């Protein structure tokens, strides 16, 4: 278990998140993929804090903050999705077609 392993794990997760973000048609599915990406970043923080950083506490703290901020973001996102659902009766990303050039 080296720093490198953790970092690789993180970016593999990130890439999986990216893949999900691009393939998912369900909006909540896309949000889930984003969660994966954020999680990957958190792993990075903790890994760096553990292996490398002079100020280890700060890194871990950052990821705690990230968790809180993500929670806020998700709350707003889900609220928006609900309004969206009320209007469109669907959460299919392909139905988002009113706004374009």
């Amino acid at each position, binding site marked *: 278990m080296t720093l490198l392993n953790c970092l690789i794990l993180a970016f593999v997760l990130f890439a999986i998140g*990216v893949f999900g*973000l*691009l*393939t998912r048609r369900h909006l909540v599915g896309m949000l889930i993929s984003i969660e994966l990406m954020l999680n990957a970043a958190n792993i990075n923080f903790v890994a760096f804090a553990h292996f490398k950083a002079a100020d280890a506490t700060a890194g871990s703290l950052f990821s705690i903050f990230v968790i809180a901020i993500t929670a806020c973001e998700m709350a707003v996102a889900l609220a928006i999705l609900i309004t969206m659902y009320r209007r469109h009766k669907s959460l299919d*990303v*392909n139905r*988002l*077609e*009113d*706004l*374009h*050039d």
Partner: protein
Amino acid sequence: MTSLYSYSFLILLLPLLSFAVNGLFLCRKSRKASAAFSVLCAGLAAAYAISVALAFFTNGATPTVAWQFRFLPIVGDFNANIGLLLDPLSVMMLVVVTSIAFFVNIYSIGYMREDMSSGRFFALLSLFAFSMLGLVIATNILQMFVFWELVGVSSYMLIGFWYHKPSAVSASKQAFILTRFADSFFLLGMVLVSYAVKSFDFAALNAVNLKDFASIPLNLGIMVMPASDALTIGAALIFVGGWGKSAMFPMHIWLPNAMEGPTPVSSIIHSATMVVAGVYLVARLFPFMAGAGNTLCIVMVVGAFTAIFAAVIACTQKDIKRILAYSTLSQLGYMMFSLGASRLCDGSINTLGYTASTFHIFTHAFFKCMLFLVAGSLIHQVHTNDLDAMGGLRKKMPFTYIATLIACLAIAGIPPFSGFFSKDEILMTAFQSGHVAVFATGLLTSGLTAFYMFRLFFLAFHGKARSEHTAHAHEDFAMTLPIVCLAVPSLLSGLLAKNIFATKFVPGALPVATAEHLAHATWIPYAAGGMAVLGILIAALFYARPKANIERALDVDNRCKLYKTINHKFYFDEIYYAVVRQFIFRGVAASARFVEDWIIGSLVNATLFVVRKAGALVREAENGYLPFYVGVMIVGVIFWYFVGKLPL
């Protein structure tokens, strides 16, 4: 005397004053007042000019610059001035121009009597007189060019005086554009020469010795050559200006067409004064041109060819003014080749040519001016230019008849009329130059001249009246007076002025050797006179013998091809038309516009197209599809990883 000289600019200013007053105030108010004012100014100018001339020639005829001011600074001491040069040549021209202007002004009172816009006519006539005077008194070549252009413009406006006549308008345009075309070479030559010599002054130019310039290289763009060669080219280019203005072949076509203008205009501008400006230019720069290689040979060849060419055409024309126009061309050719023939085969200069040419300018001015006035008088009475409609005017217009006879004899070169003396000297020059062909041409032309002039004379005045108007013709006082007055110098100017010309009209110090011993052929006057008499007799045979069938003689349709070709002026109008219309307009100008509209235009449009397409691309990316946006964003990160120039 100094005060006489120092106020000599008044000669110039009086016509200008007349132009300004007439043009701005009088021309709309009163035609009579404008005529009177114009005549007054012209008269005063003529009187002043004659008194200056008297004073000048009685006081040894030393060239002086009476006055000058700095017109345009060039660099350092190299300035373009406007000044007043008094030397024999310019004083002679002053007298000629002012007096002819005076007579023509008087004549115009009668001629333009019925024209509603005669005020404008007098104004323009005064403008012309001013410009012409400015030209002849020029102290330097730039001043000459300035007035040269002004003369061209006033000629343009006077030819197109009846601007409602399309033919007059197109003739005026043709005249202006052709001379302007020639002038652009003049300007080029002037720029070139003044660059090499660092001066515009005639004095400086005439003092140029090409040997001094042989070692200086001068880049002419296409090639680098010694400045002496460049100066020769410059001299030739300057001559091109005179070539156009004096309507030498092949730029002659504008002059016959210019006869569309009122006849007084033809008389002053297109016979007596403006068209000799080309000759005057060569005469003015004679020492320079004489020194400048073979320039004078070009002058000679051009002049001689034009002389015979125009004379041949004149023999077949029926339009009275056109005959006179071709006659003018022919006479101008005489003057030109006389100047040109001054240069002998060995490169030395025979000063007689200069004398003869200037002398011919002088004499020709009077009789040719008068002939035009006569033509105008006839046209005014007969209401047509066509000789077909004239005939038998001898009885109706006796004074005119006699005066015309004098003029015709003068131009034909019958002693003791004025033309004889000058033409004699010209032929002598040609003979002495050793160019036999030129001499023969001159001699032949002299015979042809006598023929066509008397053809005109007989057809107009003898025989029976061939039209209604002719039968009721009468003489108009205002028009006859100048004719009669001009008959006097036509008769006498040769005799009286011969000595003055022989002694005073010799070019100043020449940069090349003058010819010392030349063959003096005493038979030449007889040969010339004989040719003239022969021409008169042939004319009389065809047109004046009692049984002559005038109608048949005037019929063109049944003539041979050669006659028709000559009658159509060798189709030069058509050639000109083809060159201008087809080549310049349809060719050069159309392709320039094609380049502009299609190539430049499509470049601009292509740029716009690319911008628009790029804009469309940006906007098409906004297709509203969220996964696509996300994809673009992530690809964007990868894109910047590679493109962002970060030191990764």
